[in-house]
């Protein structure tokens, strides 16, 4: 009699167990390598807050600063600009800023800001991360048609945002631009990267 073709169940079980343990071991061995590619402690610590003097920003002007390797815009809006925010509501996806991730609680208001005139935004398109161009001027001079209320235009795939960073309907970007956490140190200086005192 020959054993050929007969499976020894004990050996088969052992084989399955060793293979299984081998796979588990390989997964453990791979973990440090996979983890080593996550943002390092230094990268995590680098997100220090940035303090900006906003007294030199004239109404209608925009200042760009760098925070965590990203452009942050500070725009001092004129009364006309603030007015446009009421008129363009029907063109927008989320005029009332319902998506919580896109602004702190204290900026979840019609102007998306702490002080109505001072808008602080992360200048990174919510589509695929380009930095939109400013087209602050309303009307046809913007190159975006005579009904353009003023705002931002992303050159990459044509997303449009209004003067509160709210996204227009039927453009590739799905949600509003992000308002970063920020607070007023004194009336003319803001600190970007820390929440307002007393805010959760």
């Amino acid at each position, binding site marked *: 009699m020959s054993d050929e073709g007969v499976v020894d169940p004990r050996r088969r079980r052992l084989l399955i167990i060793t293979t299984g343990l081998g796979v588990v071991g390989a997964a453990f061995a791979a973990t440090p390598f*996979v983890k080593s*590619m*996550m*943002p*390092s402690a230094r*990268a995590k610590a680098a*997100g220090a807050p940035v303090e900006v003097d906003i007294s030199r920003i004239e109404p209608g002007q925009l200042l*760009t600063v*760098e925070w*965590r*390797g*990203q*452009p942050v815009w500070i725009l001092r809006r004129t009364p006309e600009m603030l007015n446009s925010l009421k008129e363009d509501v029907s063109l927008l996806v989320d005029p009332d800023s319902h998506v919580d991730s896109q602004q702190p609680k204290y900026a979840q208001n019609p102007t998306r800001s702490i002080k109505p005139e001072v808008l602080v935004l992360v*200048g990174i398109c919510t*589509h*695929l*991360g*380009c*930095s*939109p*161009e400013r087209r602050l001027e309303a009307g046809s001079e913007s190159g975006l048609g005579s009904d353009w209320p003023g705002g931002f235009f*992303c*050159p*990459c*795939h*044509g997303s449009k945002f209004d003067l509160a960073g709210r996204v227009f309907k*039927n*453009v*590739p*970007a*799905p949600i509003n631009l992000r308002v970063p956490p920020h607070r007023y140190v004194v009336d003319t200086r803001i600190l970007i990267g820390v929440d307002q005192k007393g805010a959760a």
Partner: protein
Amino acid sequence: MNTKAGAWRRLLGWVDDRYPLSETWEAHLSKYYAPKNFNFWYYFGSLALVVLVLQILTGIFLTMHYKPDTGLAFASVEYIMRDVDWGWLIRYLHSTGASLFFVVVYLHMFRAFLYGSHRNPRELLWIIGVVIFIALMAEAFMGYLLPWGNMSYWGAQVIISLFDAIPVVGPGLAEWIRGDFVVADATLNRFFALHVVAVPLVLIMLVFIHIVALHKVGSNNPDGIEIKKKKDARGIPLDGIPFHPYYTVKDIVGTTVFLIVFTVIAFFIPELWGWFLEHDNFIPANILQTPQEIKPLWYFTPFYSILRATTSDMVAWGLTPLVIVMAALIIFSVKRARTRLVTSAIAALLLIGFYFIEAKVWGVVLMGLALGAFFLVPWLDRSPVKSIRYRGWMYKTALTFFTIAFIVLGYLGTKPPSGLYSLLAKIGLVIYFLFFLLMPWYTTFDKTKPVPERVTWK
């Protein structure tokens, strides 16, 4: 004189006893029989090998001077261009080589659509090829970040953000790829490691098994008939000729012509008017300002166009009817109850998804499918013949439309997406996918011509 030859034979014998040298030479070159009717389209496999070797060689020398650090990278490339002896030549050979690699590989892939090279028994060879193509795209994408120009930076930012769009795991995955919360020094450093070590190793291994698979099944040919079916008494295909010397010599001629074109570009028009090296990349990365017109290099633009064309309008008015019509077509032509059920379920899921999941995600999905579709071609193609020479008007028309759509999408990907262009891209997208989706039908109904017994050859 006899002793000299004798010494050589003794040495060879000594080696052959210890390593299959002569055996390998014979099996893969001097006694490897390839169809005798290869034409122009059969140059591109060997040319792809030539370019691969060139890229590795020039890459090694660039690595000797390049610095993968956001503070130094741009300047180190300028240094190579201005101060390193012949550095400009080595860099231009590498950048020209990258673009020509894609020219060669696209033509190599097109040949498969002409002669049915992906069909049984070459499905696995084709699949390995598609994997090579994807690895090559990854290699080119990571290489493009290295000069740390403004287009490098924003291109990487956009493409890595694609992963962000994946529901649930996306943001974590994008962070893991970047090694930071934005494209930063960590990203540049790891792309360098992957571009110069990891992906080239993978490519070399893939090309090796590509050739092993090719030599197992043998080459197809412009007539699309298997030469192994007609053999002489010694078992040699009647229509086969030894690869060496016949095709080694032919390929040397092809390589010579190719290298002439290659060097003319590298010496006289290395930027190819912005197509091979983009103007915006001669400006160092500026993290506060996206270039006016952001676009990837030409070889990615067909896929980039598909990404951009997927707006919420496109999902509602283009993809929704497409899914409904396709589902109806499958249910109408396949009688099996299970297939019908599965088709309806998938269609229903897609339609629900179209409604609830944002268009950005579908853009990424379609771009993935545009590549993934290539894997399925061997099974989508139902024609009884392989070569276009014996196919009817339907396949010829479909392939013509697909080729035009591919080129138009590629062109549009380099232009801003406004008005007419954006509409054209949407039409191109539909044609692109219909080529694959309808293939089982038009290859079944197409009238084919009788295929000859032996290869035709002048």
